[in-house]
């Protein structure tokens, strides 16, 4: 088979998420490329949670609405997801608790009881049933179980085998002759990209969807000698990080909209004091607490304008884990080269979805050293230079007094209110953006995909890349994706959009923030497909919307 989709659902807190990853890893062993969409409510127990696992021959970065298999551990899964079924979809359900017609019922409850297994192992049982039905060999299943389950593996396998034996083979998924790739989340790719470019410290206060970075980096802290800190608040997070930056240690922070609100005063301080910082901003629907565990693209204009005063910043919105890895590393380099705040703008969809990750397809990126003081004369932290970039020295240095300041200051770092000096220092800081913009001309800040001759062009940013690229492939359209959103690559975007007769802006927000930003540069869009219900576009959904707009 070239492609398969399945949905697994159950009560929150009953291991659906872990199971979906395990199924992903099983299908990964068969050479498929993987995508997992995870849908869960903001609570620890109860409520309905589900994942859609999609496996295909080609690399994919979106989910389908229609699934081939429905794995139901409770009645809600069958009742809530009727719409996802096709004529030939197969439902595998716990026949002890779920009423469903036809298909494969596995007496999960009975098996669990007989094997004296824990409730959580109901997942293993249903995965066993699915594997048999999909024609996956027991050996593949066992291997994946052994690699991924550390606790009570034997009893898990026993339960899975009984589920396996209860089911019957209904199709043969087969095996693809291609090497298995690692599967990971966008957050994990961001984390590894930052480490690769020399990250030494990560500081964060838990907030979905950024918390998994905190957890992941904490778990890797010993391996990579990272300092990972969870302080009392987001305000402390960013101030602590600026302390690290002052001392010369490469640092990043992570948060979501509400936490970022608390960081904005210190963001502005970073702009004034020219202390480099990388800010990972995982978007979720607002306003306010909004939908904590769902996805949106509503913080573009916020990230662009946050903080009092005027200062340069870098904003990149990667669209998949490869871009997340590469551009997170680049964001760290840029933050230090230009001594500015650099944003990695993600959303829950990119952050927590699982993708096949091909590190070999990513252009090499190495840690860059920032401009360092040449040790001539008296050190001036804010020396006015042609590029606006002042060479750095770090404490302790016996020949340098290193002063940073949140007030307007002179070159040495001492407070000033002099009008001429005020203007000179403001110009110095803003000049850095000009040089950054120039450097970025050497990078693919705007990417295009699909049929270059198509009259219809889909415009997207961030995690919508995956669904747009695939929809465009199916409908023979072109896609344009600006990756860097500040300094805005207006010229590159203009070139990429040349010849387009109809530009359809696809965004996961209600006000078309990219279109608003583009209009400042005289760039227009012709139609908009906006989705702001917290759920990312599925492939079918977007294709349908495109057809409505195009016809």
């Amino acid at each position, binding site marked *: 088979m070239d492609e398969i989709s399945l949905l697994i659902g159950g009560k929150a807190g009953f291991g659906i998420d872990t199971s979906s990853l395990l199924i992903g890893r099983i299908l990964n062993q068969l050479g498929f490329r993987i995508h997992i969409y995870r849908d869960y409510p903001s609570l620890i127990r109860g409520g309905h949670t589900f994942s859609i696992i999609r496996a295909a021959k080609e690399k994919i970065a979106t989910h389908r609405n229609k699934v081939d298999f429905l794995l139901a551990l409770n009645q809600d899964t069958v009742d809530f997801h009727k719409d996802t079924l096709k004529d030939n979809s197969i439902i595998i359900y716990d026949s002890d608790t779920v009423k469903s017609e036809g298909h494969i019922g596995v007496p999960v409850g009975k098996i669990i009881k007989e094997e004296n297994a824990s409730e959580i192992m109901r997942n293993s049982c249903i995965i066993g049933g699915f594997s048999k039905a999909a024609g996956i060999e027991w050996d593949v299943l066992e291997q994946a179980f052994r690699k991924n389950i550390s606790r009570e593996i034997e009893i898990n396998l026993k339960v899975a085998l009984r589920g396996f034996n209860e089911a019957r083979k209904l199709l043969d998924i087969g095996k693809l002759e291609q090497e298995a790739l690692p599967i990971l989340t966008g957050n994990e790719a961001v984390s590894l990209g930052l480490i690769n470019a020399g990250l030494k410290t990560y500081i964060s206060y838990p907030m979905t969807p950024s918390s998994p970075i905190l957890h992941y980096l904490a778990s890797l802290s010993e391996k990579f000698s990272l300092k990972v800190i969870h302080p009392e608040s987001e305000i402390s997070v960013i101030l*602590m990080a600026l302390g690290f930056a002052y001392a010369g240690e490469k640092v990043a922070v992570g948060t979501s909209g509400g936490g970022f609100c608390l960081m904005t005063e210190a963001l502005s301080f970073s702009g004034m004091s020219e202390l480099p910082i990388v800010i990972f901003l995982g978007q979720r629907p607002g306003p306010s607490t909004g939908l904590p565990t769902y996805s949106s693209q509503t913080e573009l204009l916020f990230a662009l304008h946050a903080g009092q005063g005027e200062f340069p910043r870098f904003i990149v919105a990667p669209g998949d884990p490869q871009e997340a890895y590469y551009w997170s590393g680049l964001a760290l380099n840029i933050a230090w080269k230009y001594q500015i705040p650099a944003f990695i703008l993600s959303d829950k969809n990119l952050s927590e979805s699982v993708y096949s990750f091909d590190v070999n397809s990513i252009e090499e990126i190495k840690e860059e050293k920032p401009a360092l003081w040449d040790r001539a004369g008296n050190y001036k932290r804010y020396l006015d230079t042609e590029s606006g970039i002042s060479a750095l020295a770090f404490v302790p240095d016996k020949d340098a007094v290193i002063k940073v300041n949140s007030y307007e200051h002179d070159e040495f770092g001492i407070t000033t209110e002099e009008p001429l000096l005020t203007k000179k220092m403001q110009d110095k800081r803003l000049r850095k953006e000009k040089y950054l913009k120039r450097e970025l001309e050497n990078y693919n800040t705007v990417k295009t995909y699909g049929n270059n001759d198509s009259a219809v062009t889909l415009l997207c940013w961030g995690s919508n890349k995956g669904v747009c690229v695939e929809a465009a492939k199916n409908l023979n359209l072109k896609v344009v994706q600006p990756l860097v959103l500040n300094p805005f690559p207006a010229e590159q975007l203009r070139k990429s959009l040349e010849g387009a007769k109809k530009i359809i802006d696809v965004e996961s927000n209600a006000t078309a923030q990219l279109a608003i930003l583009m209009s400042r540069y005289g760039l227009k869009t012709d139609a908009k497909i906006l989705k702001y219900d917290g759920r990312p576009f599925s492939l079918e959904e977007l294709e349908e919307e495109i057809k409505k707009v195009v016809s």
Partner: protein
Amino acid sequence: MSPDNLGTYAENTWCPGCGNFAIMNAIKASLQTLAQEGTPLENFVLVSGIGCHAKIVDYINMNSFYSIHGRTIPAAEGIKLAKPDLKVIVFSGDGDSYGEGVEHLIFAAKRNIDITVIIHNNRVYGLTTGQYTPTSPLGFKGRSTPQGTNELPINPLELMLATGATFLARGTSHGIELLKNIFKEAILHKGFSLVDVLQVCVTYYNMYEYYDKRVYELKEHNSGDYQEALNKIREWDYNSDAKIPLGVFYKKELPTFEDRFLKPAGPVISRETKIKEVLKEDI
């Protein structure tokens, strides 16, 4: 950076008679002594917030981090954790750290991180021209409370003792010799140290006479005893008329945050190799 001349070219804009002069002169003297005793001046970082107190970093020719209002302590913690051999000294106001940023103070004490916090406690907002602070007495008539405040002050030393600070002291801006000694001892203390300095604001809350009549130096006080420290700290509650003890209330050596948190670096294997190892686990 020379121990003989720690001044800068910045024009001093504190009011004549401001208690901040005493704090600056005392800290300069303490730093000079510490430099003579072997801690090079470049190993110090001075952190300040926003308020009259904060100008001190413009006036001392040493490494400094002039932060934003209420946010001195997390920056100081970051500097310390990045370079544990540095001596990080925070200058902060009562509005700055007992008010706006009080959560950072509590958590730094809880961590027992090895930084020194000196509070310029004038019990009034000077730079914003005379409003009450967390340590102003009940009924204090400031520009935002012309009929007098309706809340009692906090006793910051009691708060700090309860949250885990391991060095607590009080001085006044009318007692520079005592300040010099306390500052030096606080800086040398391994762990979180806080010195509350009753710093007089001559313009908005001139308390010189009031303090002079009531202060006395702690003698025969066992600063290693928590209960004794608490009793002495409670002798004056920043509100009622009472004798005001000065000196070191509490001093205890306990493990610091950095002792527990900072690990020796692992074997030198390239990041690239290790990333590949991690990715292999994800197949």
